[in-house]
C-alpha cells in the first residue's frame, strides 16, 4: 500500500548539497513529521517525494514502486501547501473536483467525491464560494479537501498551518490528526514547529543540515535524544545545557559545574571521572525547593497554568517550568532540585548522548 522508502536520497543544487543521503522507511498508514530549522532540507525532501524536485542520487519508492523518474501526477500522492495554493477563479467545489475533471471522471463521480470530502471537512455550506470569500482556516480545509478527493496513497503536508493564527492552528492540528485517524492514509508532514510534530505524528524525523539526526516516536526523541541538537530542538522551553566535569560520589556520580556546584547524575557505563561533559536539564524537570545547588532567581514569568522562572547558576542561566504557583521574586535565593534520572549527559566535543 502507501509505504514510502527513501534510500540514500541526495539533492544538490550545483555545488550546494542540500540533502546528504537520507535513509527513511515510512510504513503504510503512518503519520510521520519531518521537523527541523529553516534550511535543513525538510521541504526539499517532501518536494522530492512529491515529484516537484528531481532526485540527485539515491532512490524513492512509493508503495514498492521506484518513482525517481515518475512525474508528480503518476505518483498517487496529494499535497497541501503552506499558502493553500487554491485556484482563485474556481469555486470550492471546482477546486476540489479539479483532479477528477482532469481525469475525465463523470460529473456524477466528481459530485459524489466532492460531497464526501466536504462532509468529512464540514465544507458543505461553502461549496459555491470562491477562495477569496473564505477565511484562512476554511481555505486550508479546502486544500485538504482537494487532497482527500484524490484518494491518494500518501498525503504530503508542507507546513500547512504556518499561515494561521495560534488559536486556529491548535484547532486545525487536531482536525488533521483526526482526519488521519479516520482515513488511515500514510501522511508525511513537514513543520518547523516541534509542538506540532510532537502532538500529531506517530513518528518524528528530526533533520539538521541535510541529514536525519534522529527518527523515533515522540516519547523516544523526547526521553532519549541521541545528541544535543535533538535534545535542544525537542521540548518547549528548550533544554538547558551546562558545562561540567564528571565526578564519582558516594551516591554514584555527579557533575561538577565551573562554579563548584555539584549536580547529581546517573553516570553512564564506562564514564571516566574527569571527562568534560554537557549536562542537559529539561525546564519541566526542575523544581525549586530546599535541597540542591543554590541558584539566584532572575525572572519570573507566570502564564496562569504554569510559571517559567529563569535562574542563575554561576555565570549560566537556566529556565525552570513550574506547574505549581510560586511566590518568588527576582534576586531571591532558592535551591534547584531534580531527579538524577532526568539528567542528560552529552559529550562536550561531539554533542552525542553518553
Amino acid at each position, binding site marked *: 500500500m502507501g509505504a514510502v522508502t527513501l534510500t540514500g536520497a541526495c539533492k544538490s543544487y550545483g555545488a550546494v548539497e542540500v540533502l546528504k543521503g537520507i535513509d527513511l522507511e515510512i510504513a503504510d498508514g503512518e503519520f510521520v513529521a519531518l521537523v527541523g530549522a529553516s534550511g535543513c532540507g525538510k521541504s526539499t525532501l517532501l518536494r522530492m517525494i*512529491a*515529484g*516537484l524536485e528531481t532526485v540527485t542520487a539515491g532512490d524513492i519508492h512509493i508503495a514498492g514502486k521506484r518513482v525517481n523518474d515518475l*512525474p*508528480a*501526477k503518476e505518483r498517487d*500522492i*496529494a*499535497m497541501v*501547501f*503552506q*499558502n493553500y*495554493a*487554491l*485556484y*482563485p*477563479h474556481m469555486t470550492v467545489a471546482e477546486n476540489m473536483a*479539479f*483532479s477528477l475533471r*482532469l*481525469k475525465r471522471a463523470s460529473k456524477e463521480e466528481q459530485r459524489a467525491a466532492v460531497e464526501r470530502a466536504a462532509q468529512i471537512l464540514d465544507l458543505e455550506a461553502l461549496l459555491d464560494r*470562491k*477562495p*477569496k470569500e473564505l477565511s484562512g482556516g476554511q481555505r486550508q480545509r479546502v486544500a485538504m479537501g*482537494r487532497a482527500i478527493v*484524490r484518494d491518494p496513497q500518501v498525503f504530503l503536508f508542507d507546513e500547512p498551518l504556518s499561515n494561521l493564527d495560534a488559536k486556529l492552528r491548535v484547532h486545525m492540528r487536531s482536525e488533521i490528526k483526526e482526519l488521519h485517524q479516520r482515513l488511515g492514509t500514510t501522511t508525511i508532514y513537514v513543520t518547523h514547529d516541534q509542538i506540532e510534530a510532537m502532538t500529531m505524528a506517530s513518528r518524528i524525523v528530526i533533520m539538521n543540515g541535510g541529514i536525519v539526526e534522529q527518527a523515533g516516536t515522540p516519547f523516544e526523541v523526547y526521553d532519549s535524544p541521541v545528541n544535543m541538537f535533538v535534545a535542544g530542538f525537542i521540548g518547549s522551553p528548550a533544554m538547558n545545557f551546562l558545562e561540567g566535569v564528571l565526578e564519582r560520589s558516594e551516591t554514584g556520580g555527579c557533575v561538577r559545574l565551573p562554579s563548584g556546584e555539584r549536580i547529581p547524575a546517573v553516570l553512564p557505563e564506562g564514564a571516566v571521572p574527569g571527562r568534560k561533559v554537557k549536562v542537559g536539564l529539561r525546564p519541566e524537570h526542575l523544581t525549586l525547593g530546599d535541597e540542591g545547588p543554590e541558584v539566584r532567581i532572575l525572572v519570573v514569568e507566570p502564564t496562569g497554568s504554569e510559571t517559567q522562572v529563569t535562574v542563575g547558576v554561576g555565570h549560566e542561566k537556566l529556565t525552570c517550568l513550574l506547574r505549581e504557583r510560586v511566590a518568588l521574586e527576582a534576586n531571591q535565593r532558592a535551591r534547584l532540585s531534580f531527579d538524577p534520572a532526568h539528567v542528560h549527559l552529552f559529550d562536550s566535543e561531539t554533542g552525542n548522548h553518553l
Partner: protein
Amino acid sequence: MIHRPLWLRVIAYAIAILVSLFYLYPYWWMLLGAFRPAEAVLTDPLRLWPERLDFSVFRDIATVGGVSIWRYLANSVWITGASTILSVGITALGAYALTRRPDLLAFKALRSGFLLTMMYPYMLLVIPVYIVMFKIGLLGTYAGIILFLALGPIQFFLFEQFFRSIPGEVIEAAIIDGASEWQVLRLVVMPVAMPVVATVTIITFLLNWAQWFPILVISRSPDTYTLPVALLNMTGELGVNFQGIMALAAITTIPATLVFLLAQRRVMQGMADGAVKG
C-alpha cells in the same frame, strides 16, 4: 467614509472639471475644425460652436492619394486587429514560458534582448527591420506590417510581471492534480490572467491604431496605408487642407476613443479584481 464640507467638494469638482476641459478642448477643436471652413477657423479660431455644419470636406477626403478612405479604414481595422491578437497571443505564451522555465538555454539572453528593444530608439529599429523585411520578401505586404506591430516588449513585460505574481504553489498544485503544462496554462493561469489579457489587448490596440512610422516604412504603396499614415500623407498632397486634416483626424481618433471608452470599465474592474488576491 470621511464627509467633507460642501465648499471643499465644490472646489474639488470645479478643479476636476477645469482640468478635464483643458484636455478635452483640443479634441472639440478638432471636431469643430472638421465642420468649419478653413477661413472661418482662421478668422475666429477660438469659437466654441460652428457657424453652420459644413459637410463638404467629406467629399474632399473620400480619396486620399488615389486610394479610398474606406480602404484606409479597412486597413486600420485589419492591421490593428490582427497585430493585436497576434501580439497578445505570442507575448503571453512567451512570457509564460520564460516565467516557468527561466533556466532554459538562452532564455535570459532573450529577455535581455526584449529589454534592449525598449531602450533602443524606435526610429533606428526600423532600419534593420526594413532590411529584414526586404530579405524575407515581406516588404509592402500586410503580413510584414502585422508581424512588425505584433512585436511588443511592453506587452511581454506586462505579462511577465503578472505571471511572476502567480504563486508557484498554485501551478505545482495543478501539476500534482494531474494537469499537463498546456492544461496548467489553459485551465489555471489564463483564467486568472483575464484582467491582464484585457489590459494588454486594449493597450496594444490603442498603440497599434496610432502607429504610422513602421507602416510607412514597410509599405510600398498607399494600398497598405492605415488612417494615421493617410493623415500624414494629406499634408503634402493638398497643401494645407485644414478642414480635411481635421476631418480625417476625427475619423482616425473616434474608433480608438470608442474602444477605450467601452473597454475602460472592464479594465478597471479587472484591475480591481486582480488586486484582491484569492
